[in-house]
């Protein structure tokens, strides 16, 4: 259970973040300059690798009880925020995350930027746009890989899951050279929110000194219970004014409208 759930949680979280980063790199590459966008992405990945190399051993050196308390608290806050957004999107209280429209916004912003050469980079604006996008989206991935990996004592497996996700999304992005709007990102965020909340609850309570009935097997109850609770909340929120209570008959659903 531990290894499988760890792989799925890290893989899905990384796919979501990689799709968002790919959208920004594609926008920078298409409108500005591919060489600058690619160098920005590579530079950000190098910084992220450095963060993992520095923080990885440091996190591993922290006693497991203290680590579980801090990591559990952070994962629980992250998970509840992801889940909150996913429920609001699925119930119609928040617009669905749409890579197509985000891509067009990024393209418009990139087109308006100044064109300056710096060092070996032909277009500094394209470089920084790509660099910041990959670095910011990647930080969350690094956090998830390190915390899940060290807590389950499977940092290697977490890193493999992250690498698989990034490679898959990058290959798809290179192949189609368009925003990956067909990835069911909203649904994946919903699942990741459930996983982060469940693991955060489990590790947070253990770190605070609680003992779960059945030990690790408690996760087998926590994950589906939180998932079921989240689905009930989606149904309840659809009835709240402003929610998507009744389906709109005529309008065709957009490609990304797959939340929840």
């Amino acid at each position: 259970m531990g290894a499988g759930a760890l792989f799925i949680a890290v893989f899905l979280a990384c796919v979501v973040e990689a799709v968002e980063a790919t959208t920004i790199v594609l926008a920078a590459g298409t409108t500005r300059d591919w060489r600058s966008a690619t160098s920005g992405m590579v530079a950000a990945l190098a910084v992220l690798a450095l963060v993992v190399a520095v923080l990885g051993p440091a996190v591993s050196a922290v006693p497991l009880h203290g680590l579980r308390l801090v990591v559990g608290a952070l994962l629980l806050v992250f998970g509840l925020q992801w889940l909150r957004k996913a429920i609001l999107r699925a119930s119609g209280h928040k617009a669905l995350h749409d890579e197509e429209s985000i891509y067009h916004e990024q393209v418009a912003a990139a087109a308006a930027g100044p064109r300056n050469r710096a060092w070996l980079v032909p277009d500094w604006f394209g470089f920084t746009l790509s660099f910041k996008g990959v670095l910011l989206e990647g930080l969350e991935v690094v956090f998830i890989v390190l915390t899940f990996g060290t807590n389950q004592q499977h940092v290697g497996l977490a890193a493999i899951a992250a690498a698989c996700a990034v490679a898959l999304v990058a290959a798809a992005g290179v192949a189609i050279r368009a925003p990956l709007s067909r990835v069911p990102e909203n649904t994946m965020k919903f699942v990741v929110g459930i996983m982060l909340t469940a693991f955060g609850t489990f590790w947070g309570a253990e770190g605070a000194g609680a003992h779960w009935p059945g030990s690790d097997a408690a996760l087998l109850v926590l994950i589906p219970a939180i998932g079921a609770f989240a689905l009930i909340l989606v149904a309840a929120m659809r009835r709240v004014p402003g929610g998507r209570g009744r389906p709109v008959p005529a309008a065709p659903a957009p490609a990304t409208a797959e939340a929840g």
Partner: protein
Amino acid sequence: MAGREQAGLTGSEQAGKRAGVARRLRGFLAFWYDFVVGDDWLVAVGVVAGLAVTYGLSKTAVPAWWLLPLLIAGLLPLSLWRAARHR
């Protein structure tokens, strides 16, 4: 006179630099606040309080594992209700 103008310019430049540093520091703190706390501070406060009470309970004979799931059952709907109300 020229010396005073020079001194004034240096002073305004220093004030500008200080304002720049303060802006960058605010931006840095805002980034970490947004990264860790996110859209609803109540969730972060609730989680920290829940863990503190769990720790307290774990020092007694009462089982403490049930507290966080119960907290989530209350905190998540409350946060959603707050979000829907502010729309």
